[in-house]
């Protein structure tokens, strides 16, 4: 049996508590081996990665996947993405953007900033859950995470 701390981790950056709960629900129901850590905005995500402020004592390995909401107050998804991809230590971490926008300019901007994927949040619950599960299944189980 794997210990809790040995499980692969997914960092979910989502400021909308309902979306967070639905995403967590979908990931839990999936039964993937992943442990999901939830942070509420971009600043907290960077604190998490840099192990500072509230995350000074974080000892676990870095996540194999970051799911990043595009539309967040304070430090937005795009800025957070930019900072992650600008840092040599984190730039290889796969980042998937979650957004309710299908706007070409949003999608293009995220890929330009180095996003590894872009998922439009479906309105229908089953499609939403399916999208999240497929995401997790690929990035946590199929994909080889950067060492």
């Amino acid at each position, binding site marked *: 049996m794997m210990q809790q701390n040995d499980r692969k981790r997914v960092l979910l950056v989502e400021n909308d508590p309902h979306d967070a709960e639905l995403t967590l629900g979908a990931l839990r129901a999936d039964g993937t081996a992943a442990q999901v850590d939830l942070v509420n905005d971009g600043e907290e995500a960077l604190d998490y990665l840099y192990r500072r402020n509230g995350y000074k004592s974080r000892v676990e390995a870095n996540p194999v996947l970051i799911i990043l909401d595009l539309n967040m107050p304070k430090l937005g998804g795009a800025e957070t993405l930019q900072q992650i991809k600008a840092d040599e230590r984190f730039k290889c971490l796969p980042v998937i953007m979650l957004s309710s926008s299908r706007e070409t300019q949003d999608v293009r901007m995220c890929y330009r900033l180095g996003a590894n994927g872009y998922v439009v949040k479906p309105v229908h619950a089953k499609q939403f*859950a399916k999208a999240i599960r497929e995401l997790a299944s690929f990035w946590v189980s199929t994909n080889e995470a950067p060492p």
Partner: protein
Amino acid sequence: MLEAVDILLVDDKPENLAALESILDGPEYRLTKARSAQEALLALISTDFALIVLDIRMPDTSGLELAQIIKGRKRTKDIPIIFLTAHYAEDEQVLSGYSAGAVDYLTKPINPGILKSKVEVFAELFRKTKALNEANRNLNRRNEELQAANQELEAFSYTVSHDLRAPLRHVNGYVEMLREHAEPTLDPTSRRYLDLIQQSAAKLGDLIDHFLGFAHMGRTALSIAPVNMNDIVRQAIDALQPETAGRDIQWSMAELPQVQADPTMIRQVWTNLLSNAVKYTRDRAPAHIEIGVERPKSREYLFYVRDNGVGFDMRYAGRLFGIFQRLHPDTQFAGTGIGLANVRRIIKRHGGRTYAEGTVNAGAKISFTLPIPSDLRN
């Protein structure tokens, strides 16, 4: 009553000025007299003249030099000048050097009738130009206002649609989770309520998605390319497989011409029209769906989809292409009322028109035209 226009008279001799003044006396002109180039330039600063009548020979700065200054300044260069010359043979060379139209000349002694009619022509030109400029300015301003209003509206509808999606996603999500969580304990009535919530939420989701698509379509630039209509129609029919499976549908399709259009948008037009035809012939066995083309004019094609479905009352034909307009109750034929509105919008953007003909219980024919570029009209 004509609006009075300003005319500048320039001559160093007071008696000449007085003569000009008496010839041009009348309510349609406001005359300003200048006895030197200096005075003339001063007057030009404060007044917007329709015309200058200028004596070529003046003692200080000559009339020709003054004309050069006037034509060299951006503000005054378009003011027409009528030169008055007593020595036409000597001045001809110089006069012909000025650009035609804005400059005219008269030889002394002045023939009052000719001077009057020349001045009239220039005054009329000035009034018309002024009116035209004014109209142009108004048009430009209105155009800008319209564009701004349109952009605002598009942005507004887009934001609203986006903001509506989040809570709807949550309703859907929690119903689904509640179902999973409480399934074993739910009685049939509770399950039915959950079903109804989910159906309504799904319906709202479709509405928002279609509305978003509609708004998005309005803002996307057309990307025109040659489109093979035969291929696009066949693909659209194939894509309707889930709805057509198990149905008895007799398709008939004419050989369609190639057109110049935005392929993605034209595909959407066919998909909407064909899925409507499939939907509204649901109770027919066999259903007939005919795809055809006519060429009513040399410069356009008219494509149509005709079916033998439930049809509609021609009295309501005008409402068919309006957004959120539906002629059939949702309980009978599901839909959001955006499909045909989108068709019309797409076709309009391509410079075409849409038509609907129908009879209750005897089918419908929905047509659209597409212009044929002039180099492809054979």
